[in-house]
């Protein structure tokens, strides 16, 4: 597979705080990448830097071979990168269908779409995200599980090559998490590459081809889920240094 996104030595500082420090990694087309790390490790900052909501202080980000640092979020979206927000951002006062049609008319293929084609696209995406039966509801009347799906639908309507999901499973029931995983797998099968920020570890480990671990703004580990859960640095970051030391001493596995 070809490299879709190249992140090279990217840093983002807030005052003296290095929220992202010299991050380097590639994402290949068709992958699902899990992005994990303790609170404050820089996951959402990284998403904001990739989408142009923040501008990287240094380093390069190339998307399909093109430098995107310094471009505005709407330009980056039209190149084919879409995202969801951890704190959901629906267009209040509009119906579910209108929310998603907005994405369809704005995105990469938006300017070639008539209103009718935009609504058709929106309906397709709503079916994919399993909220098509709510299409005429005002967004303020949705449950949180539906708003999270709407968040994915709005992003998918812009026809992204790369979709960044920021905690779309937070607060969902186990059944709803399973549904979300199925939707993500389906989106991936359609050829969309995904970067998934998630605290629900079982979910992220189950779905990711590779996992990136951030810790205090730095890239601590990158690898397949099986390797990540055995990584000593990662176990230290999550369970504490002394736990690893003692486990080694006792020779346990």
């Amino acid at each position, binding site marked *: 597979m070809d490299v879709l996104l190249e992140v090279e030595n990217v840093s983002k500082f807030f005052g003296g705080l290095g929220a992202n420090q010299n991050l380097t990694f590639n994402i290949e087309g068709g992958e699902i990448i899990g992005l994990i790390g*303790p609170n404050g490790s820089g996951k959402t900052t990284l998403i904001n830097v990739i989408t142009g909501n923040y501008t990287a202080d240094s380093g390069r980000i190339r998307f399909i071979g093109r430098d995107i640092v310094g471009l505005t979020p709407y330009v980056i979206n039209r190149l084919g990168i879409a995202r969801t927000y951890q704190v959901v951002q629906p267009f209040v006062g509009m119906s579910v269908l209108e929310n998603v049609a907005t994405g369809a008319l704005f995105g990469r293929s938006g300017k070639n779409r008539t209103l009718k084609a935009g609504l058709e696209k929106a309906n397709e995406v709503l079916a994919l995200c399993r909220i098509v039966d709510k299409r005429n509801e005002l967004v303020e009347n949705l449950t949180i599980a539906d708003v999270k799906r709407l968040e994915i639908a709005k992003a998918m309507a812009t026809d992204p090559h790369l979709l960044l999901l920021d905690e779309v499973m937070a*607060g969902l029931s186990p059944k709803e998490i399973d549904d979300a995983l199925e939707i993500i797998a389906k989106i991936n099968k359609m050829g969309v590459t995904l970067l998934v920020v998630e605290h629900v570890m079982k*979910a992220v480990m189950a779905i990711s081809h590779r996992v990136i671990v951030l810790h205090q703004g730095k890239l601590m580990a990158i690898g397949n889920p099986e390797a990540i859960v055995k990584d000593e640095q990662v*176990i230290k970051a999550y369970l*504490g240094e002394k736990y690893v030391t003692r486990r080694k001493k006792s020779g346990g596995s």
Partner: protein
Amino acid sequence: MSPAVRSLEVVKARMALEIAGLYAGYNEINILWDIHLTVKEGKCVALVGSNGGGKSTLLKTIAGLVKPSRGNIHFDGADITNLKSPQIVKHGISLIPEGYKLFRGMTVHENLLLGAYQIKDRKLILDQIEKIYEIFPEMKERQKQLAGTMSGGQQQMCSIGRGLMSNPKLLLIDELSLGLAPLLVELLVKKINEIHKKTNMSILLVEQDVETAFSIADYGYVIESGHVTLQGKAKDLLENPTIVSSYLGL
């Protein structure tokens, strides 16, 4: 009263905190799913698990800062499920919040006094403050210093002191070690253990670092995505390799 009933009463009296079928969250986002948990009188229990699992939410729900949507919380036999925080403090529960949450523009002494704002007996308050100063002599030296100008470790001491000012029967501690240097963490662990031994206070502790958690607690619950996935004696949990998979999900 029949003997059977009496023995049941005795068992009940030994439970300081009893949580059954608890659901809670923020607005529409549900975080805790059917939590069952008990802290026996005089015991120290730890909640461990990776971030985002709901540990802090559970402490906040006990302290009345988050309203549960289902289930109930009993403390010393009384139903405290829907009480407001000040009433919960009066029942003898005190929360030491994550990140100290001191009144930064007030002195150490003033911060401590605020921990006892519901106590009307001035002498009792001053006695209690002296006890805090005995536990943390550094706080006595710094009693006139503005809280916000101290180091993280000193602020944590002040926050613990403030939590102790209401002389609680159950102390809730949210992240004792977060962001603090290892030596300081050891000191705080020692202090908490001393307080625990001296007062027979029950403690419910949220802590991500498992070794730190179980150097204080003798029983633990592992919380994962708002569910209790594992519980047991500290020693058994530390030896149980599935604790890693409950943190990391695989």
